[in-house]
């Protein structure tokens, strides 16, 4: 921007969590290139889990720091620490699911060589030789890095870079399913094309905003809003286009159509990761853009968010009713859930921020759990995702079915689950902001949603199992642990949410 770029003074300690993940991802690429095939998987597992746990430890160690780093490009404040913490914890659970390789007799959830054409001779050969790929891991870590940077970015350019670092690996990961590869590749391609499209929106919006404010720094945009409060097409256009780019990632209506296809087609561990962690990162970034940069014109975007949130909740809930595939149903459910979170975001208040953060934690872990269960219910062709195939699951595997029932009740917002506390907090925050109509729509949507959540419970517990029904694979310790964590968080946040609420409350406000 200026003729002379000053050499930035960087305090590396607060950035340590991101640096650890980034370093591990790069080393992972090197491992893929140079390590012998047999050593790759153990090395990658050590790298992935080591870096994620290490990054979380560093985050906790540095959690008291509140500063802007790298010449104001990255901001470390309470919400960013919380969001990075959620992303890391969810990533650890997702890594447990990705590492699972006992479910499918042929190997893990990923295609042996993603480059082989589906149904080709190459593919058969790779499968019969028992190839497993480990490129998944560095891709996964890069995506985690993007998710950590996304809500911590303090200007539009860094935010865009983070968006792409997060998304590009996901496009690839979505296309790597071992089973039903056509569906998976179709999903990846759609996700990529539409994702690129939405990135263009974001970029164009950033350019317009720069045109208005003369800066891409969030604090600078906020200052420009107070300095020149006049109406500007550049400002409105910039806000709208940036909003579209982020709402796409969140999966809000009417930018949601990729969600069911991609969630259905992707390998279940990746679907779990996307459904949970991308939403956390994207909502976090949206919160920062709207609250910090565009906080001065909240009256403009608040109404827009109400419309989007209302649409998202209704469309997600209504369409989910008639889904016959469990992954598609969960996809529409996650659309509806995004709507509920947006209700919290639209409150434009501290209560709204806190409620949204809590909802993200609750939603993230519950969602991880649901997809973990989906990955366990299988028949000879892979996962049995027809809801009708789940009939009588409660009698065949009562423990697993009970776990899934708990997740469904949480998503439906039944008390003593995390979902209830989350819904209550976002609705309360929205009511305090006088958004009565949105809250009414939200409550209406939650009745409709209860219908399809309960339908699964009824099918599992109150129906006879079909003759050739799927069986539940006994998971290894990894998936069991992931499932146990998800259930524990879902129940504990419903019964004893106070410690987490306190944590969020202490985290405080965005640094401008």
């Amino acid at each position, binding site marked *: 921007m200026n003729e002379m770029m000053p050499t930035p003074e960087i305090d590396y300690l607060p950035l340590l969590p991101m640096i650890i993940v980034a370093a591990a991802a790069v080393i992972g690429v090197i491992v893929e290139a140079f390590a012998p095939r047999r050593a790759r998987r153990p090395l990658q597992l050590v790298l992935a889990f080591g870096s994620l746990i290490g990054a979380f430890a560093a985050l906790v160690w540095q959690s008291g720091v509140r500063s802007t780093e790298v010449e104001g490009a990255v901001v470390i404040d309470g919400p960013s620490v919380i969001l990075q913490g959620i992303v890391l914890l969810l990533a650890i659970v997702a890594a447990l699911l990705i590492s699972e390789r006992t479910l499918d007799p042929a190997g893990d959830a990923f295609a042996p060589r993603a480059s082989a054409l589906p149904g080709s001779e190459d593919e058969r050969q790779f499968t019969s030789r028992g190839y497993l790929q480990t490129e998944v891991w560095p891709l996964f870590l890069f995506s985690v890095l993007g998710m950590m940077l996304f809500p911590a970015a303090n200007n539009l350019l860094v935010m865009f870079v983070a968006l792409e670092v997060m998304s590009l690996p996901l496009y690839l990961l979505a296309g790597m399913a071992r089973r039903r590869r056509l569906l998976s590749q179709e999903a990846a391609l759609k996700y990529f094309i539409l994702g690129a499209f939405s990135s263009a929106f974001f970029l164009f919006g950033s350019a317009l905003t720069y045109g208005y404010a003369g800066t891409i720094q969030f604090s600078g945009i906020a200052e420009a809003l107070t300095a020149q409060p006049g109406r500007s097409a550049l400002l409105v256009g910039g806000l709208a286009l940036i909003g579209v780019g982020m709402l796409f990632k969140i999966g809000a209506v009417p930018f949601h159509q990729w969600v069911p296809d991609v969630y259905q087609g992707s390998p279940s561990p990746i679907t779990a990761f996307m459904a949970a962690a991308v939403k956390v990162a994207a909502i976090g970034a949206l919160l920062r853009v709207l609250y910090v940069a565009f906080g001065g014109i909240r009256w403009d975007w608040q109404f827009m968010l109400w419309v989007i949130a209302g649409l998202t909740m209704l469309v997600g809930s209504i369409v989910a009713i008639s889904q016959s595939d469990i992954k598609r149903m969960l996809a529409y459910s996650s659309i509806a859930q995004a709507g509920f979170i947006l209700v919290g975001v639209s409150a434009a208040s501290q209560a709204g921020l806190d409620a949204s953060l809590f909802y993200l934690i609750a939603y993230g872990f519950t969602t991880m759990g649901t997809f973990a269960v989906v990955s366990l219910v299988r028949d000879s062709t892979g996962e049995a995702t027809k809801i009708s195939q789940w009939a009588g699951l409660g009698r065949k595997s009562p423990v697993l079915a009970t776990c899934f029932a708990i997740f469904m009740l949480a998503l439906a917002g*039944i008390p003593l689950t995390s979902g209830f506390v989350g819904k209550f907090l976002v609705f309360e925050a929205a009511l305090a902001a006088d958004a009565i109509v949105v809250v*009414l729509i939200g409550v209406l949507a939650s009745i409709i949603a209860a219908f399809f959540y309960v339908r699964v419970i*009824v099918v599992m517990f109150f129906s006879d199992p079909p003759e050739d029904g799927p069986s539940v694979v006994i998971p290894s310790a990894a998936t069991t642990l992931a499932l146990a964590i998800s259930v524990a968080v879902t129940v504990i946040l419903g019964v004893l949410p106070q410690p987490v609420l306190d944590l969020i409350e202490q985290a405080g406000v965005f640094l401008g």
Partner: protein
Amino acid sequence: MIGTGAAMLSDSAPVLQPLAPASGVFAYLWVLLALPLFGAAVLLLGGRRTNRWGPYLGCLTVITAAAYAIALLVSMMALPADERAIGQSLYSWVAVGSFQAEFALQLDQLSMVFVLLITIVGSLIHVYSLGYMEHDVDRRKFFGYLNLFIAAMLLLVLADNYLLLYVGWEGVGLASYLLIGFWQFKPSAAAAAKKAFVMNRIGDVGLSLAIMLIFVTFGTVAFDSVFAQAGQASETTLTWIGLLLLLAACGKSAQFPLQAWLLDAMEGPTPVSALIHAATMVTAGVYLIVRSGAIFDGTAVALTVVAIVGVITMFLGAIIGSAKDDIKKALAGSTMSQIGYMIIAAGLGPIGYVFAIFHLLTHGVFKANLFLGAGSVIHGMDGQQDMRRYGALRTAMVVTWLTFMCGYLAIIGIPPFSGFFSKDDIIHAAFEKNWIIGVCGVLAAGITGFYMTRMIIMTFFGKARWEDDVHPHESKPVMTIPLIILGIGSLFTGAALVYWGDIVGWLEPVTGLQEEPLAIPTIALEGITLTVVLIGVAIAIAKYRSTVPVEPPPGNLLTVAARNSLYDDAINDALVVQPTYALSRGFVTVDDRVIDGTVEGSASLVGGVSRRLRLVQTGFARSYALLMVAGAILVAVVLVVVRLS
């Protein structure tokens, strides 16, 4: 207390009692909840190991809770009337900014009578279930669910704030669905469970909206602070809160227009019908309204709607009960009708609150008695529930017959048995407020006499119409002893509560002061009511004295309608279910079929890679993108419109 309270507040408002800290025997209030919860946890998590002794543990926890409840009652009676409300805070549940919800319990006179009803009737039903469910392979789970229900119901009545009450509210719902669907091998049971869940969700939404509105209005959800400020809120706000609370009550208590699930709920085992769908859970709506008396006092509109809903349901239930041939469904109709009486009483305002609770208590006892009696008959008849297949059972099942007669005399209100006291009080209070409601109450009492007499004649008198291989036999002592206890309770609870327990004086600190003695001479009104009841009885005797055909006769229009539960299913289906499905399908057509309709089939398309990819590139992704552009335009337009406005 009465003097100072009345001086401080308007004369009919409930008097707010300060909560005393829990000490002495009250210090272990949480144990009441913990006992059944412990039982449920052991039974449901313990697996098959607990099969043998689990059911006994389930009974033991509830009986212990009942014993503790009685100890609490004795201690409470020893306290002065104005120190009987006890509060115990367990921990801070949700606290964000100005929003506080404690996990805190409150035991006052109103909670106390509920705790006694739940634990004592619950104990009897648990013991009875030992016999009734003897041969069921899953009976461990059954007792686990029953214990879970008791814990949730106790939480509902012991909560000291609306949010915690909501937890209990959903908890009893959950236990109820699990128990309705307990016999999963019957598809009708699974369907009934789902129906109960969905219809109750509508009511629950009323409650959650009410809680939010309460918080926004008063800044708190704790009962004592809300009621203390109730007088300051505007009447419109109070009306909205009141109507939303009424919606909640309609869902849980099967009141019009959310009554349809209760008849289907009879698919559950009979002890469940007795405990949950007659004695306790379905009265939670009455509890909610009476508990929120301070809010309803400020809104004549909401109170009137409450009374109207009560009147409608009272007649609906009575008419349905008169036509059903299934003994449990007839009793379910009767339950709806009797809860209608309670809702009417609650809708009369402070004058009726006490009578609502009074009738709730006597009804809890005699309806549990009737249901368990019906269960004994069904048990003896090898699962037959059609009364047209009964007849002449009084000789085969003497104890059941005699105890059922106790419940019968109580429900139709023959003096000096329970229903006489409680129902007549409601009718009396209704005449004080509005003579139309009073007349309706008298008429419904007549219909009660009719359908109950019909039930008695079809079941115990006349000729035997049993199916060939059925040999009715009296049930075992484990079932008949609870019946005998409840039978005695049916006869005398009413008198005991009036003459010995002084129910009116006991509840006064919670429900507010009673108004002046009633103007209409009591004797005259009682005479009229009794005459109408006897006319109903006489019509039933005249109609069913002679032979009862095994196949139901054609019947007139009203009979046919009543046999079909007044077409509530058809109405719900046409008004709610079909439109929702149509809407969903419509959305799907746009969202799913047209745009990516081939996704479902794509798994089978192993070949044709290029064709698929081409389709993706040229067709579908493009239309998604098009929609995104449309969405972007929408976002921009909304932003601009907001700017300009």
